[in-house]
């Protein structure tokens, strides 16, 4: 670090510029990470919150499983008896439009259906639990923030089903709309979708059987078993959103790596004479390489830390300014992004190390005369 630190101080203008570029990239990486966490949360937070390991969907259905799959709700009992399955419950998922009876406010909602006594029934944060009132539903706090109150009635369009709001849960959403938890029978009516009394068979349907099971459970009989995490990409838009964000981030990481590599190539070429001199004075190539890596770290770590901190600040401000911007601050993805920037930066610099270690000390004599 002897020479590395002194070079840093001496050429502080250049290193500051380089550090600023890295910091700005880190800001962008942090904001994108926040956005991508936020999109994922908006897309599948209600699924994440379910105490479920797998879903057994209808066999042969592909793509948007949550809207296309239909299974017999009664299968839950048989599933519960299978080896490796601890608990099983019928689960319904239906996107719907609703109107708040009191205010006339229009809402897009995702109705999750489950038997009130089943293991997937949520515990209310306020109000009463599922089943306390016939057709009574729990709403995501997001709807409560939008002015829907306990005691209001949600009227589902077309079917006309009236759902009294009896309680709230946390901020849960599915494919960017707020979730409403309904008793399975109520859900079945919403799912049937037409005015009037549904036929008896409508009351035997569910989207999937939610399982709490050992990892070994795969598929059986008429069902395809998908882990909860894999099922996220079966929710509308999730795979496309995730892939887009990943693509942007990959390019960002590549750019940052190339910027660092380019900087150090120029920096090394500029100092070729000095490197030759240190080699002639008896400095090992290893010494110079270690020095170079230390120098990269001394720039990358503070720059990335500062940029990430600023990015977190911006993300938090965005979130505070508008709750509709889908951003979320999660420690693990942010730490991963920062670590990746540092690791790739060091890699970019290491690629240029060959230029440092291959300098011929003879060059210090001013040519091989």
């Amino acid at each position, binding site marked *: 670090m002897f020479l590395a630190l002194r070079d840093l101080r001496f050429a502080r203008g250049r290193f500051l510029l380089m550090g600023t570029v890295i910091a700005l990239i880190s800001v962008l990486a942090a904001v994108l990470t926040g956005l991508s966490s936020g999109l994922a949360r908006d897309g599948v937070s209600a699924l994440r919150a379910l105490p479920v390991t797998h879903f057994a969907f209808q066999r042969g259905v592909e793509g948007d499983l949550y809207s296309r799959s239909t299974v017999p709700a009664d299968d839950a009992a048989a599933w519960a008896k299978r080896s490796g399955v601890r608990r099983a419950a019928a689960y319904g998922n239906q996107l719907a439009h609703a109107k708040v009876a009191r205010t006339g406010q229009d809402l897009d909602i995702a109705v999750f259906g489950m038997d009130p006594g089943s293991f997937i029934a949520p515990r209310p944060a306020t109000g009463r639990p599922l089943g306390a009132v016939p057709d009574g539903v729990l709403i995501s706090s997001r709807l409560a923030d939008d002015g829907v109150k306990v005691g209001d009635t949600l009227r589902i369009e077309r079917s006309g089903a009236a759902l009294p709001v009896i309680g709230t849960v946390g901020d849960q959403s599915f494919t960017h709309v707020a979730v409403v938890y309904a008793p399975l029978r109520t859900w079945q009516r919403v799912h049937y979708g037409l005015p009037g009394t549904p036929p008896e068979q409508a009351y035997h349907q569910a989207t999937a059987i939610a399982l709490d099971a050992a990892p070994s459970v795969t598929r059986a009989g008429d069902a395809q078993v998908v882990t909860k995490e894999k099922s996220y990409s079966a929710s509308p838009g999730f795979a496309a959103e995730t892939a887009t964000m990943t693509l942007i981030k990959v390019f960002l990481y590549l750019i940052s790596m190339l910027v660092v590599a380019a900087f150090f190539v120029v920096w090394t070429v500029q100092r070729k004479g000095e490197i030759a001199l240190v080699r*002639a004075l008896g400095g090992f190539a290893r010494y110079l390489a270690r020095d170079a890596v230390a120098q990269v770290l001394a720039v990358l770590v503070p720059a990335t830390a500062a940029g990430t901190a600023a990015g977190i600040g911006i993300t938090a401000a965005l979130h505070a300014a508008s709750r509709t911007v889908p951003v979320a601050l999660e420690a693990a993805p942010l730490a991963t992004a920062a670590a990746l920037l540092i690791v790739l930066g060091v890699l970019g610099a290491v690629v240029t190390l060959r230029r440092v270690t291959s300098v011929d000390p003879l060059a210090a004599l001013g040519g091989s005369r």
Partner: protein
Amino acid sequence: MTATATRAGLTLSGVTLRYGAGDTLVTALDGVDLTVGPGEVVAVAGPSGSGKSSLLAVAGALIAPTEGTVAVGGADVTAATPARRTALRRAGIGYVFQSANLLPSLTARDQLLLIAHLAGRVTREDRDRADGLLDAVGMTAKASRRPHELSGGERQRVGIARALMNRPALLLADEPTAALDQHRARDVVALLAGQARDRGTATVLVTHDEGLLGAADRVVRIRDGRMN
């Protein structure tokens, strides 16, 4: 010439150095014999292209000779590996380059301490030695200046102090006065020779400036890679 071969700072015997092959074969050194004893200052004079710098490169363990043997401070370095050469340069050889060749980011004092740092940790003793050497070359007052804040003569003084930092058995000076005027050139060479004699360091001073040869104990001339 009073020293025995084993105690000699530098012994070159039958050293030949060739570059290239076939039509482009260049014989830079041709059967050179040279022994420099401790504290002895030998000036090597010759026109440019005569092989002076090749002599320094071989004597300084920067390149291996094609034929012959090279010993520095009693250690045979003829067939040493590149890593061994690096270690030898660090421990046993001091260089004074053309136009000083200082590192731009380091203060005068740090130029010396870098030598200690290359060998490991910088100790209290290293700092004392650096200060002592800066004092010996008259640079104490400017110890914390960087090269761009020093004159050519001052830079070369720091260069000499740096070359002595590792207590070398052999001091090699490559046209150390190339960037200086006559007056300063004399001062610098006198300083170099004086320090070498005081410290018992075998010294090879390569120069094409005939006016500076008087400072040496002995002058050898080189032409077309041959010594006479």
